[in-house]
């Protein structure tokens, strides 16, 4: 830690200057008093994130932070306080403020679902009044009512339906934000980084919707308290656990089952929640296999995954609270050929743990100290006759941060903090043997790095019209020893090796990242927002293929791999209609990205063996610009949204495509999502999702020639071909069979791809003849993954 402060010296000046500047701006007068406290849900004791507290007289207010805390400092006087949270009954309190008040608010759920929410004083114009841009909060209950692919509710797939966010492909939970790569999304589960958020080929994400309380997506205008990624933050918060009574909930679906148990360990003080999910494709598939496969000959072939979540929280007092949360998930694939001549065993998955301590220094100063462990591992074991080999790769982080929020007056919300992470990367390790002989495959190469950050940000009202969120983030990254650097000659041959000792600084990077968002309120119903952000990213995901696979490698910045750097400009117009029932927005963005990496042409994963992994890469830059339209109906029996994105994303690599600019593989000109939910009555609700996207970019061969009596393909320019457009309609019906205090039973019926559109997943070529014998006629074949797929899930709660 101290090391970071040392090396950040010159940046410290800027930060200190900024700090002083901020403090000067904050006029604190002695007569101010503070109302502060937590907002929670009455029946479960779950704290509510992003709940609003409005001071009616001032038309100003505060929002609860990640831990449900709010603080408002006002002059002495009488005030009306309105607390609201969507889906909950509004609470109104009159307060005579003549001393500091601690106020804990318990909100009750809105039970009459079909009736329109009365919007008397509710501050539902947050999208207009807030300065943040490109930030979307998703309600988990809404996500659950949408059609689910094979019955599996997936938050990451819902995120893809938002403008500016693109799906990575058919049935895929991977996503691209504003032209950024899949590694440029910071996915956090209770503040712990999840490095690979996907199960098997991305068809499912690792997040079990039952245990999720809150999902927040930041796709632009990233505030200074987040960093380390260029494109987006997906901040997922797990439920804390019911501190009032014990409950069990779960579901039985087509391919998996889930169960979650929660309850108080000590009422109002300590609570826990545990959840588990496991797929049973491997078990279900058994009856469909032939007699041959079912007998012992193919035994041991199968695939499944599971996710385990656990969280515990303890409230020592209003001033101190402890949270411990953990996630462990594994994918397990095994294959055995008949007669056991060939065996494969492939486990992979994430593990995270975070311990957090909330402390209130005063009613204006909130602190959260966090220690995080985060780990992703991939293993591949194969055995063929007497030959066996094992390959593994992974990344492990030890991360700690301390974050403060300081709310000196109602006009300011200041965040500052420090962060330190120790990374261990294993790009690839191999061990192998023939018979009893171990093969020398070189040492397992591990790469170590320190990453640190200090930040400050202030969200303040300059005037009634202008609100500013300004922040600075100073970051440092060091690639440290032990490390062997192989020195190459002009032909790429190793001529020397330099050994760096443990802890020795090999290469360090220091940067300042400014973040600025500005809102100008035209009136109560419309505003214009601007944002400018610069981000650095010190970790990189090297992907050999066009889909995200568990084999993708995470690697640090080294002396050869420079940190990724992005600058993003955005402008938006926000307008609400009909008492804020309808929200609309238009956002335009322009983003440039430097030091993007890709494998050199013709690279293979084995190139990294006995060599420095960073020699396999080539570097270039990228740019993306686009226009995003968003229309949302947020209340009423029928709700939903339409998101449309018009965008262009390009890449320019001197060593790829002969140095010519080419479309990124996730360049998508048009991207449209329409989502509608209708609540018919208390028992039935219906949803539909329609998506349309420009086809994926692809590199196809255009010519052939003979070498060595075999046909060689001549490729066209990189990504110059487009597959057919992607479109699909999903529908679902939710039936609430029974709901009492004691027991709840509900059904979700979903149909994926209603009109069975054969969307292209990939294209391949087949030629049954041979070029040199003059009987060749290559054909292109398009493979589509999922036709119409109905599913049903039964959910229960008691």
């Amino acid at each position, binding site marked *: 830690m101290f090391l970071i402060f040392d090396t950040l010296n010159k940046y410290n000046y800027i930060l200190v200057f900024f700090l002083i500047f901020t403090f000067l701006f904050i006029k604190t007068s002695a007569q101010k008093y503070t109302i502060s406290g937590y907002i929670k849900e009455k029946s479960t004791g779950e704290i509510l994130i992003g709940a609003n507290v409005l001071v009616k007289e001032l038309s100003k207010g505060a929002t609860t932070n990640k831990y449900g805390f709010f603080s408002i400092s006002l002059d002495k006087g009488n005030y009306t306080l309105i607390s609201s949270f969507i889906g909950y009954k509004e609470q109104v309190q009159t307060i005579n403020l003549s001393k500091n008040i601690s106020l804990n608010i318990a909100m009750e759920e809105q039970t009459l679902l079909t009736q329109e929410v009365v919007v008397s004083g509710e501050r539902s114009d947050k999208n207009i009044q807030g300065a943040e841009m490109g930030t979307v909060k998703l309600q988990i209950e809404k996500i659950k009512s949408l059609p689910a692919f094979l019955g599996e509710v997936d938050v990451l797939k819902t995120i893809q339906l938002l403008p500016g966010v693109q799906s990575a492909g058919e049935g895929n939970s991977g996503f691209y934000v504003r032209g950024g790569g899949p590694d440029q999304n910071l996915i956090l589960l209770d503040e712990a980084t999840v490095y690979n958020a996907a199960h*098997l*080929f991305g*068809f499912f994400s690792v997040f079990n919707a039952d245990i999720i309380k809150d999902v927040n997506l930041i796709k632009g205008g990233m505030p200074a308290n987040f960093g380390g990624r260029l494109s987006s933050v997906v901040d997922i918060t797990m439920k804390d656990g019911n501190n009032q009574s014990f409950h069990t909930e779960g579901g039985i679906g087509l391919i998996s089952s889930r169960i979650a148990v929660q309850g108080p360990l000590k009422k109002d003080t300590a609570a826990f929640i545990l959840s588990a999910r496991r797929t049973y494709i491997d078990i279900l598939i058994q009856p469909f296999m032939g007699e041959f496969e079912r007998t012992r000959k193919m035994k041991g072939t199968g*695939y499944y995954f599971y996710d385990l979540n656990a969280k515990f929280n303890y409230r020592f007092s209003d001033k101190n609270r402890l949270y411990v949360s953990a996630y462990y998930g594994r994918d397990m*694939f095994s294959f055995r050929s008949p007669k056991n001549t060939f065996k*494969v065993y492939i486990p992979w998955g994430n593990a995270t743990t975070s311990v957090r301590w909330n402390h209130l220094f005063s009613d204006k100063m909130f602190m959260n100290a966090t220690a995080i462990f985060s780990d992703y591992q991939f293993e*591949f074991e*194969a055995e*063929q*006759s007497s*030959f066996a*080999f094992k390959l593994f790769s992974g990344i492990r982080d030890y991360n700690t941060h301390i974050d403060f929020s300081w709310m000196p007056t109602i006009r300011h919300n200041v965040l500052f903090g420090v962060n330190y992470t120790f990374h261990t990367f294993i790009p690839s390790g*191999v061990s*192998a043997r023939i018979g009893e002989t171990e*093969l*020398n*495959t070189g040492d397992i190469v591990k790469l170590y790095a320190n990453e640190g950050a200090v930040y400050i940000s202030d969200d303040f009202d300059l005037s009634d019209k202008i609100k500013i969120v300004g922040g600075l983030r100073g970051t440092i990254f060091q690639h440290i020893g032990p490390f062997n650097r192989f020195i190459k000659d002009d032909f790429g*041959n*190793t*001529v020397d090796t330099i050994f760096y000792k443990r802890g020795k600084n090999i290469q360090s990077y220091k940067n300042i990242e400014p973040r600025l968002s500005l809102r100008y309120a035209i009136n109560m119903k419309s505003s214009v927002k601007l944002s400018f952000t610069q981000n650095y990213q010190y970790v990189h995901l090297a992907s*050999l*293929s066009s889909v995200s696979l568990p*084999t993708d490698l995470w690697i640090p910045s080294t002396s050869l791999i420079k940190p990724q750097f992005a600058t993003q400009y955005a402008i938006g117009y926000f307008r609400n209609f009909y008492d804020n029932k309808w929200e609309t927005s238009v956002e335009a963005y322009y983003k440039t990205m430097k030091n993007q990496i890709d494998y050199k*042409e*013709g690279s*293979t994963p*084995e190139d990294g063996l006995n060599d420095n992994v960073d020699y396999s890469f080539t570097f270039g830059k990228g740019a993306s610009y686009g226009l995003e339209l968003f229309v949302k109906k947020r209340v009423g029996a029928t709700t939903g949204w339409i998101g449309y994105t018009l965008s262009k994303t390009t890449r320019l690599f001197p060593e790829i495509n002969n140095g010519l600019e080419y479309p990124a593989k996730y360049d998508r000109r048009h991207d449209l999502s329409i989502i509608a939910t209708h609540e018919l009555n208390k028992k039935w609700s219906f949803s539909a999702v329609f998506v349309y996207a420009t086809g994926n970019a692809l590199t*196809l061969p*255009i*010519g*052939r*020639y*003979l*070498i*060595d*009596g*075999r046909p*060689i*393909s*001549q490729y*066209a320019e990189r990504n110059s*071909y487009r597959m057919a457009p992607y479109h699909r309609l999903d529908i679902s019906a939710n039936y609430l069979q029974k709901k009492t205090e004691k027991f709840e039973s509900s059904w979700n019926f979903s149909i994926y791809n209603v009109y069975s559109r054969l969307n292209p*997943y990939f*294209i*391949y*070529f087949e030629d049954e003849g*041979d*070029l*040199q014998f*003059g*009987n*060749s*006629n*290559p054909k*292109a*074949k398009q*493979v*589509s*993954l*999922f036709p119409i797929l109905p599913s049903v899930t039964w959910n229960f709660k008691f």
Partner: protein
Amino acid sequence: MKRFQNINIKKLKNFNLFLFIFFIFFFIASCEKDITVDLPRPEKAIVIEGAIENGGYPWVIITRNTPYFEPVDAQTVISLLVLNAYVIVTDGHDTDKLTLQVDTNLVPPFIYKGSQIKGEVGKTYYLKVIVDAKEYTSYTTIPNLVPLDSVKFKPRNPQENDTLGYLWIYFRDPDSIGNNYRIFSKTLGKDSVFVHPFSSVANDMLINGRNVEYLVYRGRNPNIMTDPNAPPDPSKPPRWAFVTGETAVIKFCSINKTHFNFWKSVEQQMSSDGNPFASPTSVVTNIEGGALGIWGGYAVFLDTIQIIK
């Protein structure tokens, strides 16, 4: 003795198998259909494939490229041949004009062969080809020769009295880094030409200065039409293995870096072509003037093994 790490590296190709298996698994619900893709035509190009070995005359095969989806039948394949080229090879001192000859071991059976210059270890050879008034040039060297210590046959399953097995070659890689190899084999009485295993090139990045043991699979002669749907014929040699009773000649070649890079890119394309998840590999060339292909030198070491149990 250190084993050649390339053995297990080759097994990494199982990666593709792993993807493949995964997909079988999920393709239960998938669908496939023929589509027409509208692709631009490639620029017309000459393809030159030529080589010179120590002790041998240079040879060059010249063809043309064709659009990917254009069917090629017995008639149109003739239009791919270049039979009117002017081809010369020089070593800086002497010049050899190569003449068009018919070689029935090849399909198509046309080859330009030299008759003046024989390849020598350590020398550089310059190629010049003129087709339709356009000139294409290249040069290559025959590097220093690395000899084999021995060749051995090992049955696949020694316990089961297996008559099938693979050849293992033994050699010592020179101390200096930068040695590149290409391997061929020829079974006497069965193969008309030298054939190479699927993966035929290696460099000394992992094995510099070591004693090396390397596995050689049987290669396939591309000049013989094979029907993948034909039933197995016990009278024909197996696809991958050698059989006891055969006599095999191993041709162990040292090649330079550019020559290695070419074959490496060819083999990478062979293994990634058709894999929709791999990024495509372009095959490199060392021919100047806009042609495709390779002009390469081989330092050849031959060793013969009579395969007995």
